[in-house]
């Protein structure tokens, strides 16, 4: 009989603990309206970084990130030009494969790409998750980063020629026009295709 009374008291205690939480504030956020602040190191969407001064891509097409990627999500086509320098023809990142491990960022010596705290890029179409160089660059325009490149590399207008395909032919010109400071509208990753 004593056990039952004891048990009953314990049951009441349990109710007390859950009842106590009724008055507490919720720890969850109402997501689309409120957003959590992502930490600086957060590894979300991979973006291509642009030069802080002239807005050109930092990428030199050295293939290091492609070699470091464990899921082969990065596809780069950068054949060597006449002056033995690589010309970036194609840079694609397949987010259906990407595992956000951050090895590409660590492999890169030119601060060309970075995993950012952005995460809102879901889409109803799988094909939209294959981002080409323009999209990767546009998304990354407002990203602040620490330039790892040596000064002389930074000064050089290492402008890669982007002529991946006919569809986005007019994009490079546009990409130069947009100043990094004016690209606040591009903070939100677009879900529609670039074409």
């Amino acid at each position: 009989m004593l056990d039952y009374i004891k048990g009953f008291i314990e049951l009441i205690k349990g109710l007390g603990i859950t009842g106590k939480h009724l008055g507490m504030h919720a720890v969850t956020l109402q997501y689309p309206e409120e957003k959590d602040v992502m930490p600086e190191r957060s590894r979300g969407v991979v973006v291509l970084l642009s030069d802080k001064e002239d807005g050109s891509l930092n990428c030199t097409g050295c293939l290091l990130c492609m070699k470091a990627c464990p899921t082969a999500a990065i596809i780069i086509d950068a054949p060597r030009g006449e002056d033995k320098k690589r010309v970036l023809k194609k840079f694609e990142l397949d987010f259906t494969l990407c595992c956000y491990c951050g090895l590409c960022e660590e492999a890169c010596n030119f601060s060309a790409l970075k995993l950012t705290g952005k995460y809102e890029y879901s889409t109803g179409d799988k094909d939209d998750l294959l981002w080409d160089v323009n999209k990767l660059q546009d998304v990354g325009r407002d990203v602040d980063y620490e330039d790892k490149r040596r000064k002389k590399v930074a000064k050089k207008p290492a402008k890669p020629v982007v002529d991946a395909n006919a569809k986005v032919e007019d994009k490079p010109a546009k990409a130069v026009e947009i100043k990094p400071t004016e690209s606040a509208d591009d903070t939100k990753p677009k879900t529609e295709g670039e074409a």
Partner: protein
Amino acid sequence: MNNEELKAYIESNYASLMTFCESGKYDLWFEVKADNLVRVCQKLKDDPELLIDYFCNLGGVDTTENFEAVYNLASSKKKIRIDLKVVLPHENPSVDSVQTIWPAANWYEREMWELYGIQVNNHDNLTRFLLPDDWDQGYPMRKDWDAPDFIRFPDL
């Protein structure tokens, strides 16, 4: 018992059954003949100095010349670790089951059979469980395994 003492002990008491492997790092690795395996395991378990009562892991290795079955064992009372290696021929590899000594070996042996095609004698339940039931594409963990839809990671 530290590693040197253990090595000395095994080399004096199990000289005819186990030979020391140089390839092993950190812990002691010994090679055991496939015929002796169950006898060695039983002896290791019953040896009051060793009391190997804990079966950590069993994995197959395909060294392209032959197969190896690697038994990682430990003792919970004596706090020692020991690894056994059984080298098997590439044609018709087979090894005796140790599940009578450590029941834990059951699934590991099944897995080794399934993925490497190493036959386990006296095993009570050699059926597929990691691969689909209707799997007919051979033993996927073998180095020479290939399948029509198997794409190797691009070598850069």
